């Protein structure tokens, strides 16, 4: 059984371990993100066999989601987006001299959350993929739109900017010759554009170079050092918080499984949940509450398993990193979706096995090597930034040995830099690029099967429960951004609070 492949082959085991180790540090060092690391890594591992390449990337993903919490606790700088909520209570704990306890609890809870996520993935993905066989092309199209809109609306707040970014991504993905009719699209008569724009160049530019340019604003900021006490948490602490961690892991896996939403949103929602359900916290939330640390950390790691569900079963990424993982599978000739689960179940079980192993490595590396860790995260940005830029250039060049890709990467890097400054989310751009082909193909299939009749197309949506649910979800996202919705919500919540106060 392929689930055991990673456990029995020393080379793969080593790569998962190496990836997890690197991931913990990548996630922890401010300025390096998991998305950036995985996108750069694709370009270096594309000539490898698929198993070693995936092993390394899964290790980095799992380690990186956890690693972000370290600097959130020690320096109040979340190393990864999924650790933003961790800083809210982790840093106050560290300031009180409880950094070791915070790190230990975070590690164990991330481990528990990680396992719950992987468990749900193993059980749910085969069921979802069976169900996914019943999906019509229009359902795929609606799912893709839903994913892009969700990542746009939830991650940034401004749906308009999210829509713009998502549509831009789809347009970038459409550049080149149309695969069905060979018609040129957005090529402006440049031969270089006929083959399209390398999505790796877009990804590395947006997540690597733009982040490095942004970090130039903070070159002179000094790192704050914290003392670290005992790391391994007591059994009673773990037992006491187990019920909450199970609840927040469930939130994490559900949010992770929604197309377009990942660990960052899961962590914030779990934090919110913990705040509501914890009646008497030992310390107030925001002032070093243990619950405020446990909730986001279990949720973001369980979201990893969750994010793999839509990726493996539908070919629709759960978040930006799984979007890049889909890209990696494409490069290795695999096409994620229900047919991959049926034709090559071994690949699915291999990924589950690699995730389990990465989770085990995570707890090992998490509870050891703290001295080395504090040294590495204090690496000055004046060295780190030029290195990120250099790696980005090497990564963009390596895939096609093309200088043009380097220029694209630099162009998107500068563009991404301005987008970040002006509050445009980058996640939807990447999701748009990855899903462009799927959306285009499925729209055309759907409308051709309805004999080019828009009326019949909508009739199809309203007569299929699944299509209807997806369609309503898309509409709800739009409606939720209108002033009418906000007013209605305020009225409803206002009445509720009035009745409770009575």
């Amino acid at each position, binding site marked *: 059984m392929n689930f055991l492949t990673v456990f029995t082959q020393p080379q793969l085991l080593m790569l998962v371990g190496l990836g997890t180790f690197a991931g913990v540090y990548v996630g922890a060092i401010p300025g390096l993100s998991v998305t950036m690391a995985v996108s750069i890594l694709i370009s270096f591992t594309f000539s490898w066999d698929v198993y070693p390449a995936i092993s390394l990337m899964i290790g980095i993903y799992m380690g990186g989601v956890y690693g972000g919490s370290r600097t959130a606790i020690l320096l109040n700088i979340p190393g990864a987006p999924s650790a933003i909520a961790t800083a809210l209570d982790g840093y106050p704990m560290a300031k009180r001299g409880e950094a070791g306890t915070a790190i230990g609890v975070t590690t164990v809870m991330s481990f528990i959350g990680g396992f719950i996520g992987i468990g749900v993935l193993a059980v749910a993905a085969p069921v979802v993929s069976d169900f996914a066989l019943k999906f019509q092309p229009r359902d795929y199209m609606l799912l893709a739109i839903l994913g892009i809109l969700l990542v746009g609306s939830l991650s940034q707040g401004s749906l308009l900017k999210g829509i713009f970014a998502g549509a831009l991504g789809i*347009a970038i993905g459409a550049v080149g010759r149309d695969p069905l009719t060979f018609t040129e699209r957005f090529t402006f008569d440049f031969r270089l554009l006929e083959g399209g724009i390398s999505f790796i160049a877009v990804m590395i530019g947006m997540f690597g170079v733009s982040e490095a340019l942004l*970090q130039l604003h903070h070159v002179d900021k000094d790192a704050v050092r914290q003392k670290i006490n005992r790391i391994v948490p007591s059994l009673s602490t773990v037992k006491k918080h187990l019920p909450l961690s199970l609840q927040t892991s469930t939130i994490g896996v559900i949010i992770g499984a929604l197309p377009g939403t990942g660990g960052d949103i899961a962590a*914030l929602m779990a934090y919110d949940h913990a705040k509501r359900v914890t009646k008497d916290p030992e310390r107030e939330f925001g002032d070093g509450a243990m619950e405020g640390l446990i909730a986001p950390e279990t949720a973001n790691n369980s979201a990893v398993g969750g994010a793999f569900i839509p990726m493996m079963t539908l070919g629709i990424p759960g978040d930006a990193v799984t979007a890049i993982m889909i890209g990696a599978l494409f490069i290795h000739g695999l096409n994620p979706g229900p047919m991959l689960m049926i034709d090559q179940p071994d690949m699915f079980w291999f990924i589950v096995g690699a995730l389990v192993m990465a989770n085990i490595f995570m707890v090992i590396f998490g509870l050891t090597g703290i001295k080395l860790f504090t040294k590495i995260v204090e690496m000055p940005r004046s060295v780190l930034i030029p290195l990120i830029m250099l790696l980005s250039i090497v990564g963009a060049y390596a895939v096609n040995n093309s200088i043009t890709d380097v220029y694209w990467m630099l162009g998107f890097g500068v563009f991404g830099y301005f987008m970040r400054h002006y509050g445009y989310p980058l996640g939807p751009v990447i999701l748009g690029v990855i899903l462009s082909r799927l959306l285009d193909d499925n729209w055309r299939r759907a409308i051709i099967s309805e004999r080019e009749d828009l009326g019949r197309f909508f009739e199809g949506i309203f007569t299929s429960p699944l299509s209807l649910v997806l369609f309503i979800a898309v509409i709800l996202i739009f409606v939720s951004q209108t002033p009418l919705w906000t007013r209605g919500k305020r009225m409803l919540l206002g009445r509720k609070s009035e009745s409770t106060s009575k």
Partner: protein
Amino acid sequence: MQHIDPEHHDGTSDATPGGTENMRRPGELIFGVVMLVTSLGLLWSAYGISGFEALSAPGSVPMATTLAMVISAALIVAKTARLPLDTSETLSRDILPGVVLIFAAALVGYGILLKPFGFLPTSALFLIGAIKLLARRGWGWTLTVALSSLIVIWLIFRIVFTVLMPAGIVPEAEFIQFFRDLTNGGDA
């Protein structure tokens, strides 16, 4: 739910728009207008693909997406124009400081020199210049850090990942072959 911008995860990042959501950052309106004009150009180009030929034509999805870009960009511009300008920020200090411009230029320079000069000399030049500029420390420290990191990167990517970067003026292949011959000779 508490709103924290995950894209700008660095707690110290000044990329959180304007410090507040209700202010316009310097240059934000110009960026919005550029996006709107670009979107209009792309919509025109998308229309040129197949016009309104058929719903399943190759231009239909590009037209729909660029139309979405035009509408959202127009609404963003309208919304941004109504916001008061954040006077505590300036374009040259908070959005596009000199160091960012220098680095953007250095990256373009790197791209231009990579093919003719090769990976090793161009990267060495880039790293030494960049680290010297940012760290403002002595030449000894700068050269040691820059060159040792370059050697590590080169070894990892050339040997482990077998990435072939342009050799340029450095006889990289001969160099590697020389070491291979040395080790083979040693074995024999």
